[in-house]
């Protein structure tokens, strides 16, 4: 029996504001999972803390809503503990580019076979409207009353620099397009980033649906070659009047799990856990001298 979007339907009504980009993202995530042929029990969604991180609560899927900034290491441990599970992280821009920036870089470096979904609304929503590491320079909020002073962080550019092997960006207002990117990310072997631009209808009056629609364009339609890393870097720096969406870069390198010595025997969690065999005991005794 084929999986449908209905299999992922949750029982809890989302607490997101009407019009929130997370609704589009939720729809796209479900559609992407279905397109990739995955059933809820095969997936583990690990989120952080924030409006968007409540996503697993609103779907029927394995989920672990963890700590602000920490879904990536939890997902890493989960993947290394049972790499037969499809592990997907879901977190916002504050979570991934603020508190969790260090983990983000290291996870991309590792090329762990996970899908990293970053909900980028360029603001902190759940804590009510402070600026974010991805806010545009000059963005005025309660913690940046004179406008943000720092250069905005770019998940796409940072992932490319760190060695991410699938780097893409989508838009919550284009559910079909985003679903397609998520499906591709799920099928990719290795670290796959999908940065998802989304409006925060309550607190971010600058980066609205209209603001995005005036600027976004599709890389693939524009003739970009995703195997060209140098071109991808150039596109990653593009922001402002033109914002590229689609697959920036894709390549295949050995995943972290493919190289971990401890996984030669298969997933840790699915091995039968039993006391040491006589042979193993002898080996350890010999080592002790």
């Amino acid at each position: 029996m084929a999986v449908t979007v209905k299999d992922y339907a949750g029982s809890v009504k989302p607490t997101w504001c009407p019009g929130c980009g997370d609704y589009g993202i939720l729809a796209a995530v479900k559609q992407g999972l279905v397109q990739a042929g995955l059933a809820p029990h095969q997936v583990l969604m690990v989120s952080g803390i924030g409006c968007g991180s409540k996503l697993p609560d609103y779907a029927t899927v394995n989920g672990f809503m963890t700590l602000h900034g920490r879904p990536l290491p939890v997902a890493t441990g989960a993947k290394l503990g049972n790499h037969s599970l499809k592990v997907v992280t879901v977190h916002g821009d504050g979570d991934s580019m603020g508190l969790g920036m260090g983990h983000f870089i290291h996870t991309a470096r590792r090329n762990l076979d996970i899908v990293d979904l970053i909900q980028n609304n360029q603001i902190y929503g759940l804590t009510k409207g402070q600026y974010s590491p991805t806010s545009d320079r000059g963005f005025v909020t309660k913690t940046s009353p004179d406008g943000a002073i720092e250069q905005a962080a770019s998940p796409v550019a940072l992932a490319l620099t760190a060695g991410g092997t699938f780097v893409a960006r989508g838009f919550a207002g284009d559910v079909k397009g985003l679903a397609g990117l998520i499906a591709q990310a799920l099928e990719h072997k290795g670290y796959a980033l999908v940065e998802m631009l989304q409006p925060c209808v309550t607190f971010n009056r600058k980066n609205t649906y209209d603001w995005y629609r005036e600027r976004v364009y599709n890389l693939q339609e524009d003739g970009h070659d995703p195997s060209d890393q140098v071109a991808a870097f150039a596109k990653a720096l593009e922001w402002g009047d033109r914002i590229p969406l689609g697959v920036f870069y894709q390549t295949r390198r050995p995943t972290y799990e493919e190289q971990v010595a401890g996984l030669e025997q298969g997933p840790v969690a699915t091995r039968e856990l039993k006391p040491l065999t006589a042979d193993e005991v002898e080996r350890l005794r010999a080592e002790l001298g």
Partner: protein
Amino acid sequence: MRTINNMTFKIAGAAGQGVESSGAGFSEALAQGGLHIFAVQDYMSRIRGGLNFFQVRVHEQPLYAHEDAVHILLPLNEEALEAYRDDVVKGGGIIYDEGLKVDPQAAASRGRRAMPVPLLDIAKEHGERVMANTAALGAAAGVVGYSYERLADVIRKNFRSKGDDVVAANLRVARGAYLYAEERYAADFEWKLKQVDGAPHRYVMSGNQALALGALAGGCRFISAYPMTPATSIIEWMAKHEHSFGVVTKHAEDEIAAINMAIGANFVGARAMTATSGGGFALMSEALGLAGMNEVPLVLVEAQRGGPSTGLPTRTEQSDLLFVLHASQGEFPRLVLAPGTIEECFEVGWRSFNLAEKYQTPVIVLSDELLAASLRTVEVDAVDLHKVVIDRGKLLTNQELDALEGEYKRHRFVEDGISPRAVPGHPNAVYATASDEHDEFGHICEDQENRVKMMQKRMTKLETARQDIEPPTRYGPEEAPTVLIGWGSTYGVLREVVDRLGGEARLVHFCDLWPFPADAAEALQGGRLVVVENNYTGQFKQLLQSETCIQVDQVISRYDGRPFSPEDVLASLKEVD
């Protein structure tokens, strides 16, 4: 007048001179001869220079502690001789290279015997300069008349990988120094070592090694950690067993990643641990609460060292007790164990995983630099790998999962607080759980009634866990007037003090610390209560008093980063008298 099989050697020098490797090799040679050893190391937080020492005590009977008295000092440089000369007892010997700029009279002051040996020359003549340490050990063995063959065995084993020529050269050097020292200094030297024939084979182990071995035997196949003295050797030991035992070891980017990775791995059903020291644990405190809140098993080893902040990185202390007991915001159940011996480290190594999975909550193992790094001879039976039990508590089996009906409740309300546990992967048990307060399904829930029930559920697990808490260990005659109270690594020194006091004292030692043993008060009846601990504020005394309302009569503290010696404790006890 001869003292047979009861002495201490101290090898000292600058970092980089081979103090540790020489000491470890010598300890092995002694153990191979059927003798018991207890060795402590003292090293500085640097790679070259400074002053380090390796002190190995030898006896025919089992040893549990080091002592301050030194009978042979082997200083590898002048500074070491200066610094440790006064540790040598009257009649004891100082073996040093003839070439050191040392005033023999000063070395020999207070009845000590200066024993210069041309170590460098012997090394150069029979091998190479770098073998001077081997010469020193050869000389030491010669002075005490210990079997040259035992030393030779260790040399052959340790240098085998460097080739036959190197082995042969080291043997010549050791033999040359042995004969030289024997000829000049052995005749009237009081302390002698004799092999014990027919002694059973024993292991020489450190606390970290025993912990890691216990964990592996107990089914741990995942460790994530960030290097931090004195816990680093745990992940390094596990890393050596990656291929042979299928252990996933991850040197994470920081301690926050380390603990969260271990939590993720446990969440999906692997047995996973992390290991750190105080500073790393401080970083881990938020995630500790995540494990407690979401009922994820976790084993966390905290090997204490001198604090606060960077403190004394290579030295020992017991100053994180209250921190570990209370760390993280809010309230959730945790178990805390503080093994006291190498053997106990092995047992706690596997027992902690059973407790973590049974109660679906974090278990913290409190060790310290002394226990982590000291070496002792242990009986083979004491680390019986066949006796290890694996108990996964209410982890649902495949059959049980197949039989599940309806929507699975990960945090189902149950009388003993422990819900049946499914790990992700089975179609009948699909669930998402939040670190926010949640309902039985794991959904975010701010409802007051649910919150009260959930809090009670989690905390009830602590009460249920009391059934698995061991009472404190008792040693010594029950009628003894003084009761020495210790926890963690002080077991050894206090046991020795009890022996030396011959009936005047007894020991009550705590390994299981939280939930606090209910029968603790009973063990402490009748006698003058003296808590002995390596910290400034008397943390265990505070815990004991708050849990039992018993007033302690004296606290013996040490917070200079060095472990207690029997002499210390005895002197402190006398002071009060």
